[in-house]
């Protein structure tokens, strides 16, 4: 590839999971891609005028409208007779996707437009200073769900975005993680090969917001999957077709790496609740590897 699609030199924090995710996504989709980006860390750190990391046509409009801007791009490409040669990606953070942008995203799904929507899930509004979002996990300490003597952090579990996407009957939905880059890129390639609306939600650790060591980004991401707290699942036409099998590790292994869960470490009752969330995921998606299964990614 002679053109860099996502060049280094941007202003992301050391160890930023989202910058890694964004590069993996665009390199998997390739140069014939147009990207519409919501406001958020990615937009801010990759396009500080007069510089830009983007080697593909890229547009940022507002916090909540990438799905709608991408819909206009897709419609224009159809009008120009060019849609078959160009991938359209709309992308944003968890806040821009699951909260303020959910309506525009639902509209995009419902219209059946040929767009891949990528949600970079760092589990809070990082760009504005680590406030909670609908995808912040249970008990996480954020600046608007702070732990205190009367609170153990965020009071609700993550909003089930993949299921919400599936409920629209769209042809492809998957979760991915920067801890598993090949799996992530395979999913992006598959998604862009399918016509219609697609949704991929990528777990992207944020060293600043999650308070983990920047060198541990990949490890933190992997541990979330291995604990059953971020199941890697894949749906085609709303049918679960594959999950990443795990040998579940206790959730503490994941929690103890991050300052956002530090307040829980002497609180076995709260940890138990989080373990129950993991157990529920493990059961629901049948994540546990059996002795006969060699391959960790299994069709089901």
């Amino acid at each position, binding site marked *: 590839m002679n053109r860099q699609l996502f060049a280094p030199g941007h202003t992301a924090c050391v160890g930023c999971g989202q910058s890694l995710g964004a590069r993996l996504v665009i390199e998997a989709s390739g140069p014939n891609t147009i990207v519409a980006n919501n406001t958020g860390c990615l937009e801010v750190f990759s396009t500080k005028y007069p510089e830009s990391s983007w080697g593909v046509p890229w547009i940022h409009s507002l916090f909540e409208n990438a799905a709608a801007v991408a819909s*206009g791009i897709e419609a224009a490409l159809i009008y120009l007779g060019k849609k078959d040669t160009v991938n359209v990606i709309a992308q944003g953070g968890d806040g821009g996707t699951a909260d303020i942008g959910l309506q525009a995203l639902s509209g995009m799904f419902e219209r059946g437009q040929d767009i891949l929507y990528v949600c970079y899930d760092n589990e809070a509004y990082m760009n504005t200073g680590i406030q909670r979002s609908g995808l912040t996990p249970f008990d996480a300490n954020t600046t608007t769900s702070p732990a205190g003597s009367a609170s153990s952090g965020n009071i609700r579990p993550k909003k089930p975005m993949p299921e919400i996407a599936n409920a629209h009957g769209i042809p492809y939905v998957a979760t991915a993680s920067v801890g598993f880059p090949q799996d992530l890129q395979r999913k992006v390639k598959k998604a862009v090969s399918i016509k219609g609306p697609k949704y991929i939600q990528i777990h992207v650790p944020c060293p600043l917001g999650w308070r983990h060591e920047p060198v541990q980004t990949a490890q933190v991401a992997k541990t979330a999957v291995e604990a059953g707290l971020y199941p890697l699942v894949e749906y085609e036409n709303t049918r679960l077709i594959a999950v990443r099998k795990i040998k579940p590790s206790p959730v503490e292994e994941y929690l103890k790496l991050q300052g956002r869960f530090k307040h829980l470490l002497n609180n076995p009752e709260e940890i138990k609740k989080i373990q129950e969330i993991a157990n529920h995921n493990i059961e629901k998606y049948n994540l546990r590897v059996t002795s006969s299964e060699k391959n960790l990614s299994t069709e089901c």
Partner: protein
Amino acid sequence: MREFLEGSQAVTRVVKLCKPGVISAYPITPQTHIVEGLAQMVADGQLNSQFVNVESEHSAASVVLGAVATGVRAYTATSSQGLFYMGEVLFNIAGLRLPVMLTCANRAISAPINIWNDQQDSVSMRDCGFIQFYAEDIQEVVDLHLIGYRVAEDKSVMLPVMVCMDGFILTHGIETIDMPQQEEVDKFLPPYSALYKLDPERPLTMGPLVDPEYYMEMRFAIQETHKEVIKLIPQITAQFFKVFGRQYHGLIEEYRTKDAQRVIVAMGSVCGTIKEVVDELRAKGKKVGLLKITTYRPFPHQEIYERLKNIPRVAVLDKALSLGSYAPLAVEVKAAFFGKKKQPQVISSFVAGLGGRDITKDSIKEIFRLLTAKERACEFIDLKPELLKETYE
């Protein structure tokens, strides 16, 4: 060709003639006939456009933003709450220099909720960077769409345009109008060619983060472009005249102001009523006139100054408020005399027709009557004093 058309239907016909590649709009009274009409044209195969049905005005505006950014002409229409819901996107469209066309069917703003006409919606959006035209009648609505696309897409402009038409009065009113022919439109309005667009062959970044080092210049550039638009509009209307044979100044229109002692300044369909009253009063020997403002953004300060500087008494009629201050149009007409020696002895400000209250010929006569040596600020016409009395138990 002369045709008897409803205003909204006329809009759909002229939009079709402009051949937008993408249309996206969300229904709101009194804009609905426009979006329904366009949807039907696409469904009937008469209009080769992508019609994108959205879940909100925010998305409608975002869709046309994305389409024009991809190099395709686009169209949207809305009204009132819908325009406000688009607000954030409207500023963004202008800041991105995307020549979107938007028809605003002017309607009052809630609360209290009210579906009838005034101009609070578009007047409140005056700062968003859109060029704003106000039409007096359906013919002008049609023509301003053609003129609007030409101005918006001029390479020296690249700014969006809002054509404002009074809700119900013009959207649902019926007139015999001269509907342009496709060949004429094609001669006047070339296909859209973007200066910059989203194209994998030549990748570029649109809408980056711009810090204090660069932001001011980008906003300044839009402000400067608006000054160019003031010069450009009369040139485009002159070309319009050559093709279509209808003459507009484009910025303003004078009606019997030459020797007038008293002039009303107004925008939109009320100008038709004012013209009738002017004729009646002139017949009785009263020296009265009208200055109609067609282009509200950019605001034609210089033209207004030139046309009004020798008029002794000027009344400005607003169909909108700036709650807590003077009426918006009045403030700007006054500002046209900022730092000038010559100016009217009196510039009085009147508010009428809010929430669809009829502005009758008597309302206009009342304004002329109140246009005395005593300057009035924000004087409400046709208020019902009996409704203002309220007792608290």
